[in-house]
């Protein structure tokens, strides 16, 4: 497709919840500094796949994977990989904004604090930088030490993005980041995604096909645990090769 470097790559990936095969032989590569969107009906495996990229499924009882996921050409499921190191490189934003019940400032610096960083200037600078990146700074600069739970849903989600950026990952995973937000907040997050891809590789799961069309460069369509089609977003939405893709994007099912 393009000549950019592959940031993440899945090779012959199968994933199981107990005996249930949730992902069937997935092969896909996600390029650096692009936005890749995963679409598909509920239960199709797109969120499961997203969560294998930073190994969030490790805590699910009975979950296991076969195959490889390469991050910068290194398999993240190798034995010697420490998940905390992996997650410093692959950040994640969740479906429902999940700020910690702490102050705004403490939320942003949490990732650094648990790494043992206590340099006040560095923490403050990082907090300001990431809050500016997420266009939240002007809204919260006077209440940094107030509870994050007092923010609106959209602000909370941008705070969660700021929190993820604070530990300087190279990849940001977003699991339906706007599904709990109103249209204005959604627009802000989408603009943000557009800005962020200059510096980060972004993978986004979305139920909203217009959103996938608006924000992503590449789109992958998942159905019943299979990767049905993967192409440039424009191509996938205008001239899909597979009938299943066609049916889904025209709203015939899902």
């Amino acid at each position: 497709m393009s000549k950019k470097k592959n940031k993440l790559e899945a090779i012959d990936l199968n994933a199981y919840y107990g005996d249930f095969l949730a992902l069937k032989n997935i092969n896909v590569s996600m390029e650096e500094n692009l936005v890749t969107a995963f679409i598909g009906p509920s239960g199709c495996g797109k969120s499961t796949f997203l969560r294998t990229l930073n190994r969030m499924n490790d805590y699910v009882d009975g979950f296991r994977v076969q195959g490889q996921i390469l991050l910068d050409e290194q398999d993240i499921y190798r034995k010697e990989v420490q998940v905390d190191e992996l997650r410093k490189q692959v950040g994640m934003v969740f479906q429902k904004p999940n700020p910690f019940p702490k102050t705004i400032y403490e939320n942003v610096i949490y990732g650094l604090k648990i790494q043992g960083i206590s340099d006040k200037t560095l923490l403050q600078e990082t907090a300001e930088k990431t809050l500016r990146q997420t266009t939240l700074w002007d809204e919260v600069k006077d209440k940094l030490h107030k509870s994050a739970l007092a923010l609106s849903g959209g602000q909370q989600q941008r705070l969660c993005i700021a929190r993820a950026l604070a530990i300087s990952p190279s990849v940001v995973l977003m699991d339906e980041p706007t599904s709990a937000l109103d249209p204005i907040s959604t627009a802000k997050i989408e603009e943000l995604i557009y800005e962020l891809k200059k510096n980060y590789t972004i993978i986004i799961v979305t139920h909203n096909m217009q959103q996938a069309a608006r924000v992503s460069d590449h789109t992958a369509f998942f159905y019943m645990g299979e990767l049905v089609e993967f192409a440039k977003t424009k191509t996938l939405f205008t001239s899909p090769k597979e009938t299943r893709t066609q049916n889904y994007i025209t709203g015939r099912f899902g």
Partner: protein
Amino acid sequence: MTNADRNRLKDKAFQFFGIFCTFIGLAVLAVFLIDILIDGIGRIDWEFLNNLPSRRAHRSGIYTAWIGTLWILLLTTIIAFPLGIGAGVYLEEYGKKSRMATILEINIANLAGVPSIIYGLLGLEIFVRLMALGGSLLAGALTLSLLILPIVIVTTREAIKAVPRSIRDGSFALGASKWQTVWYQVLPASFGGILTGVILALSRAVGEAAPLIVIGALAYVPFAPASPMDEFTVLPIQIFNWISRPQAAFTTNAAAAIIVLLVITFILNGIAVYLRHKWQKRIKW
């Protein structure tokens, strides 16, 4: 009479039955409280709180008993608090779902229902004899800790369970280890609930006489304990002792001591309610 009429009648009947049940409980409690207050309130004064026990009822006080009770309260907290929370955290956050874990779980729930005198026998064998602690405050506190541990563990688990999955996910996704997630997120968010459980368990321990009698706490201690290795008595034992005397004056003493014990229990419960309220207001998911 139509069906609808009958249903309305049943509804009314059940409502009255409910009111009746509620009032029976409250009425018995009220009668008991009033009776105790009438009997004992006049006996409480500075001297009663500061005097040592004596053969003469009017010179007898509860100094050793309430000091003993406070000691027991303190030591039991120090022992049961970390152990109970540690076990609760392990079972809820670390323990994998296995046969072993299920067996452990059922047994802990069962332990909460074992009569307290059985814990007394256990304490007598292990702490008093095997560990040679004698009838000391430490042996008493260890025994009571065993008694309330199941309650502390169960309430800790309930409080931890109430912390949403999304908070843990958020922490893990930022590279936090399990321990960091527990320490920085789960425990602070559930601390109100945990504390409430611990305090309610303690207020139960404060009222126990049977297990302490079994391990050899004395009814008559001529001096207030000064270290965890000293012999001791507690309010419930002092009350038990006075109640069993034939003289009416001792019964009055018992009533007065009961009031003091109730005040301690009410204070503990009050703190628990306050903490629960405060934490609930602070954290809304």
